[in-house]
């Protein structure tokens, strides 16, 4: 298997507090990995560390075989690690369009990028609601619209691997269903890691599911994960 993202024996946490230990996983370029886990298990901390927003204390993160362990988050984003963060983190004082335009930071760092207008048109086609609200402030969007914007932003990074942290959190069941359809449509275009507490949602989407249990990765049936 040629993995786009490979995590090797990674440790991470906050300062002296280690939240996860010895996490190894590999995701192929057309594969979707699901991560389940209880509150406080360390899922968000793991994704943030892979994205470079938190430092790791041991182990390595490889993107397309390249060691990015010491790379700051903004360079990992430009290199193709996209994270739709828990809580969405929409820029409330910027318009929808300006939220999207921030991703132009990748220009000059990626080969063969179509013009920005074309890239935006593509995500507007996927989320017409965002096109209608393009000039509205991010903070004035509904929760579901904010989740669309957060995903649209990450897509504009042209991710090699897209990570989503609890994308269904706080969404009405009908919106969860349409999100499942949207994400299913993206499946196979790039590697994905989806963190969810909603097991049914994950089973619809993921090629395989692992569990985060107090900071270590185990197979869904509880046995130690022998990933990669």
């Amino acid at each position: 298997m040629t993995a786009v993202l490979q995590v090797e024996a990674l440790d991470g946490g906050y300062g002296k507090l280690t939240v996860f230990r010895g996490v190894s996983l590999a995701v192929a370029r057309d594969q979707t990995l699901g991560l389940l886990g209880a509150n406080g298990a360390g899922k968000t901390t793991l994704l943030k560390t892979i994205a470079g927003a938190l430092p790791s204390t041991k182990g390595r993160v490889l993107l397309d075989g390249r060691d990015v362990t010491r790379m700051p988050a903004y360079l990992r984003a430009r290199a193709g690690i996209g994270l739709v963060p828990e809580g969405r983190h929409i820029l409330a004082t910027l318009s929808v369009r300006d939220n999207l335009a921030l991703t132009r930071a990748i220009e000059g760092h990626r080969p063969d990028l179509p013009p920005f207008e074309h890239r935006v048109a593509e995500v507007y086609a996927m989320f017409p609601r965002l096109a209608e609200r393009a000039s509205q402030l991010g903070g004035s969007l509904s929760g579901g619209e904010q989740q669309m914007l957060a995903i649209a932003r990450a897509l504009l990074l042209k991710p090699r691997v897209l990570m989503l942290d609890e994308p269904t959190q706080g969404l009405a069941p009908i919106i969860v269903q349409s999100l499942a359809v949207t994400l299913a449509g993206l499946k196979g275009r790039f590697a994905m890691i989806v963190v969810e507490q909603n097991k049914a949602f994950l089973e619809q989407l993921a090629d395989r599911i692992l569990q985060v249990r107090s900071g270590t990765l185990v197979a869904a049936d509880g046995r130690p994960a022998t990933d990669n």
Partner: protein
Amino acid sequence: MNLFTQSVISGLMTGAVYTFLGIGLVLVYRTARILNLAHGETFAITGVAAALLAGAGLPLGAALGLAILISLAFATGLHRFVLRPRAEWPAGTLILITLGAAFVVRGVLILLAGTDPLSFPVMFEGPPVRFAGGAMPLQGIALVVLGFGVSAGVGIFLAATRAGKQLLAAAENPYAAELLGVNVERARITAYAIGGLLGALAGVLLIPLIAVDFQSGLAMTLRGFIAAAISGMSPVGVLFSGLGLGLFEAMVGAYLGALYQDPVMFCVLILVALWQSRNIRFGGSRRA
């Protein structure tokens, strides 16, 4: 001479200076989440450096240019070498460090230039413009025009350019910004650089009309901060609050007497602090 017109003129000039200083404080506060009490030192450093360099025989233009560069180096260096390595420290401690830096600058200025006020020639020479019973030096007109022009320019930079929006994004939510590929650190250094440049410009334009000494920095920080706080730390609002504050201070000086200016300004500071204390947090917000 008409006292009212003359006060409006001097109020416009000091108002432009407060706007200049307020913008730098706001940008740094919003992007790096630090209340930089050494900010006004950019004004004092520029003034003293320009006076010494011009006094040593350098052509005025070169002296001013060099002084501006020194101020820029101070502002960005303070961030890069003093504050950034301690980004995880409590905000209150960092504020004290900036105050310490202000006093270090004071000491260095005394060592280099002594305690007497210094000045240097104006850039814009010529007879003052007279109108409505008042007189405004050409340099003062340049100060007001540039002060509000440059401040408006910063507003346009923030609202309409890609780098400006990156700066606003980094200010609002550095985590979200970096996940989108924005170099948050560069946005912060840009904020300090704009602050250092505007503080220096204020010095270059105002000091020939008054004078500068080792104490000028903190006085400028104070005025800039009041203007910034009245605006609610808004980079556009500070244009108006700076102007209003300058006019108010000039009127106090004209109708109550110059001795009242400082006490009245401190009262304004206390009132603004009480009024804005719910909006402006000095330690609570995330500095990630």
